[in-house]
């Protein structure tokens, strides 16, 4: 087994050498960035929309207990049920209990990241209930037997050729070809349409919960979430405790930044608001359940990491991250990749190797810049690095830094020692301008050369140039 710290590095190295993955990433990379930029350019006050969305999320977290309690009260009053899942195991058990009680044989699924987090599909399969993904991206990766590599575009890592191959393997196509994207989408539409009509239960996630009326908001472009939520006799929403806001006005504030940040749309094609079915409704499931997952999120409240719970899962941070763009989502080995995943994964899952994800950042700050709810991702990553350094034991680093600060506080000694070192190094290097190798700097010099000192220090030359006048 490789050491945990090496895992991300090892996976990234593989990802960098995977030509299909690199082709898929190269296609996705400019699209997301361009689409978001043009959507943002179409509204003159996007910064004000962001500030409002951030205020809504912060206000929601400040009184999360009250909002969740009201949410539960409203859902129950309207004839639905709210279930609380402290752990992912609880979530699996709750969903399976509901499914068994209805005698379900198959379940359609809209996209639910919480379902992924809890490995719900595996649990359903083991219980003899066929889970059928309906979001095209999720359907593709279900065929491939892979986890999602992006929270908005789960099959982002797949090229068209790979998708065609999966369809040829699993569908009975006869003579039909899958020459175009349209052919692929039509084929999936035909197969999945049958699944909708057969399903006994429909499981979806939720983008927002509204306390005031006990409503679950679902955003999709395909309409798959709505067919999943509307056709079967039971609708189960699996989501997390942090999703709740007070009112419909608050939901509007989030919707205004969500799609613009995620896919560069002003709004997703379908934005639907669901609750339990009442007497006046013309169709819809008889049974409505909401399962709310905690899985350590509550522990982030009041901690240094509370701001992470502001996240609305738009994916903008990963779309703009140079590390994600280079290595893709699977390198993070987590349901949540990219900068938001690098913060969430160690906090929610906390396996030893997860802390190394905080190192997967150049601290360029683009994630924070594009985050629609103002999460200071680089600062949170830095805190995680500090925690991880404390856990790991610190090595010689802190002693070296302490030594340096002591030296730097003694100017005379500092000048003397730096002139001595530069002179010495200049003597050793002779006429070479740089070193390819240097003792103790093996890995540092793998992709760069070390410039050789040229005989005197900067301070020395400065003094000389100003005619010996010493103002230090």
């Amino acid at each position, binding site marked *: 087994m490789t050491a945990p710290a090496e895992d991300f590095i090892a996976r990234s190295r593989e990802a960098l050498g995977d030509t299909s993955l690199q082709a898929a990433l190269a296609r996705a990379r400019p699209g997301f960035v361009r689409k978001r930029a043009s959507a943002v350019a179409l509204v003159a006050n996007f910064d004000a929309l962001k500030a409002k969305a951030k205020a809504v999320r912060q206000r929601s977290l400040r009184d999360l207990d009250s909002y969740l309690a009201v949410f539960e009260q409203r859902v129950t009053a309207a004839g639905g049920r709210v279930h*609380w899942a402290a752990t992912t195991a609880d979530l699996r058990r709750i969903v399976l209990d509901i499914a068994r009680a209805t005698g379900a044989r198959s379940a359609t699924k809209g996209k639910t990241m919480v379902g992924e987090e809890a490995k719900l599909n595996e649990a359903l399969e083991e219980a003899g209930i066929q889970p059928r993904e309906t979001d095209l991206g999720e359907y593709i990766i279900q065929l491939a037997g892979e986890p999602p590599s992006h929270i908005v575009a789960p099959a982002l890592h797949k090229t068209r050729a790979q998708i065609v191959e999966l369809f040829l393997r699993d569908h009975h196509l006869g003579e039909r070809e899958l020459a175009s994207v349209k052919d692929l989408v039509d084929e999936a539409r035909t197969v999945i349409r049958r699944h909708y009509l057969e399903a006994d239960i429909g499981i979806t996630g939720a983008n927002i919960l509204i306390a005031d009326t006990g409503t679950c908001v679902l955003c999709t472009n395909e309409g798959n979430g709505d067919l999943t939520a509307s056709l079967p006799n039971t609708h189960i929403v699996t989501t997390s405790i942090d999703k709740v806001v*007070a009112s419909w006005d608050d939901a509007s504030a989030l919707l205004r930044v969500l799609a613009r940040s995620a896919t560069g749309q002003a709004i997703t094609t379908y934005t639907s608001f669901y609750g339990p079915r009442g007497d006046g409704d013309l169709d819809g499931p008889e049974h409505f359940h909401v399962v709310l997952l905690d899985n350590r999120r509550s522990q982030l409240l009041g901690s240094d990491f509370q701001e992470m719970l502001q996240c609305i899962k738009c994916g903008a941070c990963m779309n703009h991250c140079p590390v994600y763009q280079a290595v893709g989502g699977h390198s993070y080995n987590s349901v949540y990749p990219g900068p938001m995943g690098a913060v969430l994964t160690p906090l929610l899952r906390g396996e030893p190797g997860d802390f190394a994800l905080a190192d997967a950042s150049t601290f360029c700050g683009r994630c924070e810049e594009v985050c629609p709810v103002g999460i200071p991702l680089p600062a949170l990553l830095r805190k995680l690095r500090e925690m991880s350094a404390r856990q790991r034991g610190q090595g010689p680093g802190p002693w070296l830094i302490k030594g340096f600060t002591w030296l730097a506080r003694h100017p005379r000694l500092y000048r003397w020692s730096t002139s001595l070192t530069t002179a010495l190094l200049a003597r050793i290097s002779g006429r070479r301008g740089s070193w390819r190798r240097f003792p103790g700097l093996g890995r540092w010099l793998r992709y760069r050369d070390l410039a050789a000192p040229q005989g005197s220090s900067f301070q020395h030359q400065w003094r000389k140039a100003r005619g010996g006048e010493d103002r230090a």
Partner: protein
Amino acid sequence: MPDTVLAAIARRLGRRPLTGEALERRFQVLKGEAEAPVPPATDSDVVCGFKTQALRNLFEISEVASLQQALAALQTHLPIAPSPQASLRHLPWGSYGHTLVETAAAPALGVVEASAGIAETGTVAVSSRETPSALLFLAEELVIVLRRENILAFQEQLWHKLRPGDCRALHLISGPSRTADVEQTLQVGAHGPRRVYLWLISEDSP
């Protein structure tokens, strides 16, 4: 122990979980603390802005004086058997040579009326009290009737007009169904309607 999660959250926030009257009072106070809504900045008038956004969303818009006039157009442009929502079945479909189809597993053409339009995103709102959700998503093609007078500028205006949360489902629809899951290429006609026609009716409601 259904409440342990909620209790843990309250504890982290330094409070005891509230219930009943106390919870309701607290919630009303919290709602009162909300900042004012911030709508997106727009410079065009409501109907004009609605149309611009709706076209961007790939709605196919026709402007007609009345519903009858729109029906006549339906015969020439859409020679498909329609499945109208209940409240539209009284219209004289027969006089235009159409046989109605009751909502089936896969209606060819759904015809529905939206309760409102929202200009900020070029969106229409349809509720499960007037229209079965299945009709909206199973139809191959969809006609949405919208009266001009029902176009609002911003989402919040709809929430205040509708008493939302009263129905099982409120759908905000912004064009035909689509996906970009294959190599980020936009493909219209994912699981829902492949084309969505929007009839903007200018006469006052009957």
